[in-house]
């Protein structure tokens, strides 16, 4: 049986990569995908713990995370479309109206 | 029935606000009429307070129901009045219909919001006067602040935002410190067995002098800002100048009284040692305030600002009276609070009248109005002399008692200096009156001014009646206040060391007997105390 730490380390790596992606990319959709990656990294942790603790609650939580992710995808992508329609770009460096 | 009167009175305006929401906002007449009706009803509801008030030192019309309980904190909805708050409550309910009536024409923008603000303000003011729970008091204290902020900020003059923010922040600074002090006081009280925020619990508390000092300073700062005392007064002229007439009237008549009321009700009886220690400081500030405000008032060009500074001076007298800590002085201070409410309120109304007509308040724009507006001139003159404190008008009784009380107390020399404020008040008020009303009517814009109409006369008549009634027969006011004032004085004197073993006074019901011991051991020598055992003049 694979030790729990393996899963956690993998999860940590994925999370870190996701973070780096969020911080370094300019394309809003890619950033969005990186966020999904981070969510998944966390999901992995939940399920791994669930397994090693013999408790299903973690998996239920993952279930909810997925629901939220789905909702987020729907709304987030709709926002991007709306934004793109207005500004012809989804580069986050163009999004600077939320100043002050 | 008696228990609910206070709550009914306090929350009737709130009910009015809710109903107001359902009145179409373009029907100005109905909005005004309804608001007036609500305030008049509130006044009527408050009348049984006077008739049913039993002249003694107890809190009456008590209602005490548990409200919030969170951990060690227990706040009650605890209301009641004694002789001190009785008249302030009456002043509030009396002034409100007048204030509403005064803005019948002046405000025609967002009338609904304006009326709602005024009613909310009334809730806050009444609530603060009737609260016997420190926490409840604090809540109402803050409730007062918000509608006033909007009244100044939305319906005010040119510089309204600045004035409103200044007013708000000034007051907020003080009240936050007060909140801290209230909580600290509660923790101190808990170790002495206090279980809720009722102020009755804290009167008997024997705090060590250092704690008292800090808490007194916090409370005193909050109240000093509200009074306002020199040098924390600069928000007042701005707020008054920018506020619409009703706002100024309420601000002067009631809101400022919150500060002085706070001293009598909280700062003085709660922290006797600190009071003793800081009396010279506060008396100095009060005296400086009197002279200072009078001198500054003298050179003002704006009538409203002048009246605002005169408020500072008048409230200085109140402070001297309160801190003289004898029956005459405190009595005078309390009366002066009522008087100031009536006469300065009336002065602001008068300024409002000419402002509505001419849209200016600069003294130089006027002159010779007496000829064009004889009724106005008469009323203005009566109010002016009441403000100066001419015997026979209300202003005199309060001012005289304050000075007498101050002179008989340790504050003798302060009082002598303060008395010169009597001269200065005549100077600045009469000079203003002369420049506005006397002389040739040479400004063409003034030549078509209309004299007061029936509504305006109706506004002023009750005030003028009060000016003379309180000046000629102040007995009912004095008599009803006296026992409560005796009690406050007793509480505000440093307690003999014996009392240290009794942390909490058992019950207020026993107070009348227990507060009048056969002598005043705590009174310093040479201090002309109230004659032992007999509250003179009260058979």
């Amino acid at each position, binding site marked *: 049986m694979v030790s729990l730490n393996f899963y956690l380390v993998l999860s940590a790596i994925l999370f870190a990569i996701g973070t780096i992606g969020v911080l370094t990319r300019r394309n809003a*959709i890619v950033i969005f995908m990186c966020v999904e990656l981070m969510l998944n990294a966390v999901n992995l942790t939940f399920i791994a713990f669930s397994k090693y603790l013999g408790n299903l609650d973690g998996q239920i939580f993952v279930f909810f995370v997925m629901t939220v992710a789905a909702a987020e995808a729907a709304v987030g992508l709709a926002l991007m479309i709306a934004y793109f329609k207005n500004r012809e770009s989804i580069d986050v460096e163009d999004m600077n109206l939320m100043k002050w | 029935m008696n228990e609910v009167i206070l709550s009914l009175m306090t929350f009737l305006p709130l009910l009015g606000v809710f109903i107001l929401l359902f009145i179409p906002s373009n029907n100005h007449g109905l909005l005004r009429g309804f608001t007036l009706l609500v305030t008049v009803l509130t006044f009527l509801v408050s009348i049984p307070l006077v008739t049913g008030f039993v002249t003694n030192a107890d809190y009456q019309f008590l209602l005490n129901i548990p409200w919030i309980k969170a951990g060690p904190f227990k706040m009650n909805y605890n209301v009641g009045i004694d002789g001190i708050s009785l008249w302030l409550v009456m002043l509030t309910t009396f002034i409100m219909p007048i204030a509403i009536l005064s803005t019948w024409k002046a405000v025609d923008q967002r009338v609904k919001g304006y009326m709602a603000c005024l009613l909310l303000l009334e809730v806050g003011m009444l609530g603060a006067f009737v609260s016997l729970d420190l926490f409840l008091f604090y809540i109402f204290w803050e409730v007062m602040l918000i509608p006033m902020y909007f009244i100044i900020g939305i319906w005010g003059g040119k510089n309204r935002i600045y004035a409103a923010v200044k007013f708000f922040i000034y007051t907020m600074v003080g009240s936050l410190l007060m909140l801290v002090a209230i909580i600290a006081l509660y923790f101190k009280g808990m170790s002495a067995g206090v279980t809720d925020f009722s102020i009755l619990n804290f009167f008997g508390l024997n705090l060590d002098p250092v704690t008292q000092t800090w808490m007194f300073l916090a409370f005193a700062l909050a109240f000093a800002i509200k009074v306002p005392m020199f040098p924390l007064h600069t928000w007042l002229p701005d707020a008054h100048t920018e506020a619409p007439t009703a706002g100024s009237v309420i601000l002067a008549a009631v809101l400022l009284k919150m500060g002085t009321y706070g001293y009598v009700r909280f700062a003085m009886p709660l922290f006797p040692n600190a009071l003793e220690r800081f009396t010279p400081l506060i008396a100095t500030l009060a005296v400086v305030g009197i002279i200072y405000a009078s001198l500054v008032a003298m050179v003002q060009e704006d009538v409203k600002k002048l009246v605002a500074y005169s408020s500072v001076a008048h409230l200085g007298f109140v402070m001297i009276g309160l801190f003289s800590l004898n029956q005459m002085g405190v009595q005078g201070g309390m009366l002066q609070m009522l008087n100031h409410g009536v006469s300065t309120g009336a002065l602001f109304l008068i300024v409002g009248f000419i402002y509505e007509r001419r849209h200016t308040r600069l003294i130089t724009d006027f002159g010779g109005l007496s000829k064009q507006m004889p009724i106005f001139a008469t009323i203005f003159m009566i109010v002016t002399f009441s403000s100066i404190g001419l015997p026979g008008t209300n202003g005199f009784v309060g001012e005289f008692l304050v000075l007498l009380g101050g002179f008989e107390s340790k504050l003798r020399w302060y009082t002598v200096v303060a008395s010169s404020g009597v001269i200065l008040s005549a100077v600045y008020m009469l000079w203003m009156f002369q420049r506005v009303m006397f002389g040739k009517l040479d400004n063409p814009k003034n030549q078509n001014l209309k004299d007061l109409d029936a509504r305006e006369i109706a506004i002023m008549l009750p005030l003028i009646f009060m000016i003379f009634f309180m000046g000629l027969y102040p007995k009912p006011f004095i008599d009803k206040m006296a026992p409560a004032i005796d009690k406050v004085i007793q509480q505000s004197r440093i307690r003999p060391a014996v009392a240290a073993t009794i942390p909490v006074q058992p019950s207020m019901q026993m107070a009348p007997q227990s507060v009048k011991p056969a002598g005043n051991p705590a009174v310093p020598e040479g201090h002309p105390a109230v004659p032992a055992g007999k509250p003179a003049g009260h058979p």
Partner: protein
Amino acid sequence: METLFFLIVAAIAVICSLMVVTNKNPINSALSLIMTFFCLATLYVMLEAPFMAAIQVIVYAGAIMVLIVFVIMLLNIKSEAGRRTSHALFMGISVGLLLLVQTWYLLVKSSLSSVRGTVDSAMISKVGHTELIGKSLFTDFLLPFEITSILLLVAIVGAVVLSKKKL
């Protein structure tokens, strides 16, 4: 054997996720992300959570990623116009790595000390993973579950409103 398999899958997942971050073309990123999701689904199976693996594939790799790919294509986004400044790049990478170091350190230092639950392999194989999840969802977590539906409804409404022609 199992560990080896895990390591291989993990390696693929990490490589794919790196590609998500580094690829210039969003489509490539998206495809790499799908690959990562598949790897994760595999791991879920290894963790005896077949139901979660299923919905991972269906919801994530299927629904969400399809949506993303559609949007990318719809907007016809070509490769990124430019990268971020090297300064920002450096900052981002270093913060990410710092995060990794910290979590790693935490993992090394900490130890699991919770009460074991009742669910074990035997029970899962006997009752069935889906049934267990279902029971839990419809008993203990009924209210959140129902609220989820409202959330989704709101999301649908939001998406529809946002993507209307005239916003």
